[in-house]
């Protein structure tokens, strides 16, 4: 019951974030969506994720607020606005319709099929010696995926440092 109320709150905050003209207000509304997501992780019994989502949301807000400092001119509505909006809404309606048929194939909410995770839960303490099962999954059973994630982070940091460099090309004489 509280999960549905939280999801409704997140939907309202997302609609506010999309429709408000002022950039600073919409960034704050996205912060509200992220905070609601952290609460939803806590309700769904995932404490690792709640901590990580909270601190990552704070950092993401700081970076987004930096991007709104630059002022921009007012955007004008070009022609064919009604046709474009109508076609996007039609596409989204078709997407929701077909996804409803796909969601019927999933197991009902609250009864997951835990074929692989059953092994991890039962053998976790014997094989690794850690009591936090999620930590033993990401660092011992599936450590290769964590290596891929570290590579992505490294590449993103190098990308940001390369894009924001101040020295340019050497001018030809």
């Amino acid at each position, binding site marked *: 019951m509280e999960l549905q109320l939280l999801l409704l709150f997140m939907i309202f905050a997302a609609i506010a974030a999309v429709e408000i003209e002022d950039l600073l207000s919409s960034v704050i509304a996205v912060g509200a969506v992220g905070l609601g997501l952290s609460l*939803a992780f806590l309700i769904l019994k995932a404490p690792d994720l709640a901590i990580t989502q909270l601190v990552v949301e704070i950092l993401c807000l700081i970076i*987004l607020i930096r991007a709104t400092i*630059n002022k921009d001119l007012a955007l004008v509505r070009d022609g064919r606005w009604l046709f474009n909006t109508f076609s996007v809404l039609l596409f989204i309606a078709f997407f929701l319709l077909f996804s409803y048929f796909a969601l019927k194939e999933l197991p009902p909410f609250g009864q997951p099929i835990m074929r692989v995770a059953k092994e991890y839960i039962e053998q976790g*303490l014997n094989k690794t010696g850690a009591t*936090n*099962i*999620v930590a033993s999954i990401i660092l011992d059973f599936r450590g290769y995926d964590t290596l891929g994630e570290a590579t992505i982070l490294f590449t993103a940091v190098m990308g940001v440092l390369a894009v924001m460099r101040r020295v340019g090309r050497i001018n030809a004489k």
Partner: protein
Amino acid sequence: MSEYILCLVLFCIGLYCVLRKRNIIKIVIGLGIIEYAINLFFILVGYRTHGRAPILAKDQAITNMVDPLPQALVLTSIVIGLAVTALIVAIAIRIYDKYGTFDISKIRRLRG
């Protein structure tokens, strides 16, 4: 079932924002909303009613835990989403320095 539908509605709101808005920062906000919806969907699939968090305690038996495997996957996905957002914002700042605007319909020239 209704939780899945609400999560997909959140995904569609982000999708509408990416498709229809012309300000680059609004597109980044839409991408952020899409990423929140996808992470939430993963954890919703792996939830067990009246389950326990996947942390062992000293005096409780190992029964009735929620699925820990989607939680491990989403944990890395959250940090990757932050890195990608920072990269897009860096590129957007450089675009503003070069063209003077965030409007994507005015950024047309690709210079070699």
